């Protein structure tokens, strides 16, 4: 009898589906929903230890909006814009060239461009930091020295600091985006180009009127990913300024969270910044997706 009911339980069309999705639902509840909920709670609390917390209303949010927060927001925004300006066109160009039959050694170039994607930000970043060292014997400074430019203090200037982060990010991510675009290019039917050619379209017009429109879904994808990757950036800044960020150079929102929550043991404030970051990224992404008409019904 007991056996029968157990079997019945498993075979029940109502219960079985829940049983099978339970691992995923549990994972979601434990590792996603619970932390999110407790972050929201903590953002209204003064946290002195996980056992001693005190509700302080909006105080964390009030203290949060200072000069440093806006510096961080500015840095993130500039960084995201610059990264996107490089990380969309450059990989498209790579992909178009490497997709053409006229280029020799395509596989070699593909691998060379893709390999940086396999390195960790920290490992690559440390090499970048040494290359862009302040001494006139550091690699980049000695190269520009030969060109007659005086050695630069790369890490201690806002502009060059930003440049370092963008270069490091571009160097790492361009390869991944290129692979997406290559896949996209290969799904464009050859006939389209042939008929366009018959109509007298040159290389540029074919690229502009055929390639780009058909790559649009992939461009939107990389754009969306690029926006939230840009706003949640941490590693690129951490390798260059791992202990302190002079004059807020390299201070991003996530580093601000890290600084407040861990370096200054103020988890409540850290949570408040985290929630604000979530809202910012959500808004930016929504606006962007709306502009590209992703929420509209497919119109054939």
């Amino acid at each position, binding site marked *: 009898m007991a056996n029968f009911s157990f079997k019945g339980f*498993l075979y029940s069309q109502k219960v079985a589906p829940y049983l099978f999705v339970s691992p995923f639902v549990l994972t979601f509840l434990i590792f996603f929903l619970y932390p999110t909920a407790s972050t929201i709670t903590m953002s209204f609390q003064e946290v002195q230890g996980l056992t001693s917390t005190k509700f302080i209303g909006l105080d964390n949010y009030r203290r949060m909006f200072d000069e440093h927060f806006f510096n961080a927001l500015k840095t993130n925004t500039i960084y995201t814009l610059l990264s996107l300006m490089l990380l969309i066109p450059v990989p498209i160009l790579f992909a178009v060239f490497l997709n053409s039959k006229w280029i020799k050694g395509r596989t070699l170039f593909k691998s060379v461009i893709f390999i940086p994607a396999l390195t960790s930000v920290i490992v690559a970043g440390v090499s970048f930091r040494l290359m862009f060292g302040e001494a006139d014997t550091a690699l980049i400074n000695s190269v520009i020295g030969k060109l007659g430019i005086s050695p630069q203090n790369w890490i*201690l200037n806002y502009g060059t600091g930003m440049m370092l982060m963008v270069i490091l990010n571009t160097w790492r991510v361009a390869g991944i985006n290129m692979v997406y675009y290559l896949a996209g290019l290969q799904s464009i039917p050859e006939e389209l180009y042939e008929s366009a050619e018959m109509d007298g379209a040159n290389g540029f017009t074919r690229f502009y009127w055929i390639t780009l429109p058909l790559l649009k879904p992939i461009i939107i994808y990389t754009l969306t990913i690029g926006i939230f990757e840009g706003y949640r950036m941490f590693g690129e800044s951490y390798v260059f300024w791992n202990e302190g960020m*002079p004059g807020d150079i390299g201070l991003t929102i996530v580093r601000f969270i890290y600084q407040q929550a861990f370096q*200054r043991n103020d988890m409540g404030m850290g949570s408040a910044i985290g929630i604000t970051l979530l809202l910012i990224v959500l808004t930016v992404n929504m606006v962007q997706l709306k502009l590209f008409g992703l929420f509209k019904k497919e119109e054939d």
Partner: protein
Amino acid sequence: MKKASVTAVASMLLLASVLSGCSGDGTESSTGGSSDSSKAVKLSLWTFQDLHKKYYEKTAELWNQSHPDQPIELSIDTYPNAEMHNKLLIALQSGVGAPDIADININFFQNFLKGDIQLVELNKIIEPEKDKFIQSRFDIYSKGGKYYGIDFHVGATVVYYNKELMDKAGVNVDNIKTWADYIEAGKKVVAATGKTMTAFEVTGQRPFWPMIVQRGSDYLDEKGNVILDNEVNVKTLQAMKDMIYKDKIAVPMPGGNTGAEEFFTYMNKGEAASLIMPMWYMSRFLEYMPDLKGKIVVRPMPVWEQGNVRSAGMGGTGTAVTKQSKNQELAMKFLAYAKLSKESNIRIWQELKFDPIRWDVWNDPELQKPDPYFNNEKIFNVLLDMKDEIKSPNMSELSSASQDLVNSNVMFKSLKDQSQTPEQALKAAADELRKQKK
């Protein structure tokens, strides 16, 4: 029937794997400490410095030789500085996973003294021998009269002079008594050698912090109130700025701070005639600046005006025992053995080149041995001479935040990119700190 049981087993496995995923860590660490069949007691220790790790390893060996009835098995993990402190903070707050003993950097120590303190009070092992130690080195790790950490070193700030350059300029370092003398000497050095007298950190807080502490000021007062923008501090920072841009005897430090590769190369090449740093920086000279061998002499800091002291204890590592430890008594005994005993303090000098906190060993023949790197002088005589002048900064809740602000904003904006005057920079940082105070 068969099908049903297979499905059942499969789903149980799935569930089990998910559930064990979230409790795995907890069970592991709770069984680790208690259930050992061997006699040796297992103790775990976290540090952020490889040098410290080597020291503790040897200490454990010596302990086992001298305490055959109470052997220990010490396992040491080294993590990067910031990462270790974050890990420890979370482990202590969540109640699982903390080691028995942990090295805690002074920059972060106050974070561990907030709310319900998860470190063990060490008065029992400190008090019996307190008078043989530099008292201020215990105060910085204390709260309400209870001690929570024991340091390796005093970190007495001194001036390291490059004797070769000073001789070339005809300056006798023993005649430099005040900072005014120092500036005059600096001008001679610059004129005679074309090198600079010194370099100031611009992404760090030295020598600003020791300079204000020697004048009796600080970032925070004894009660924890913000005094970062007081008159003494403004005057001191202005004087530092003048040394760079008016007297032209100092430069913003290449690489930004004394831990940067760029700075090691710079100093090693003999580009600066002196450096104002704590005693523990000797190990960096020995390790990273081999070309300066025999040229460096150590002297007390000059003073600003009468009544100033000639040094300040800077930096530090407070080693603590956690409340999560299952063997608190033994961990405390081992800690006392490793950091309070006379022998250990001698070893701290021999192995780590730190100025030990126990001043009654400074006279020991081992510490009195002249060092060829430092011009064959007896360095500890300099320290013995100013034993009662070594003040340490005040530590309280805002300590981490105040150091962070001085490191990243005040120095950089006032000395390097000059976007703010010293007064503005200090005022801005102080206001921000006051706002953070709850």
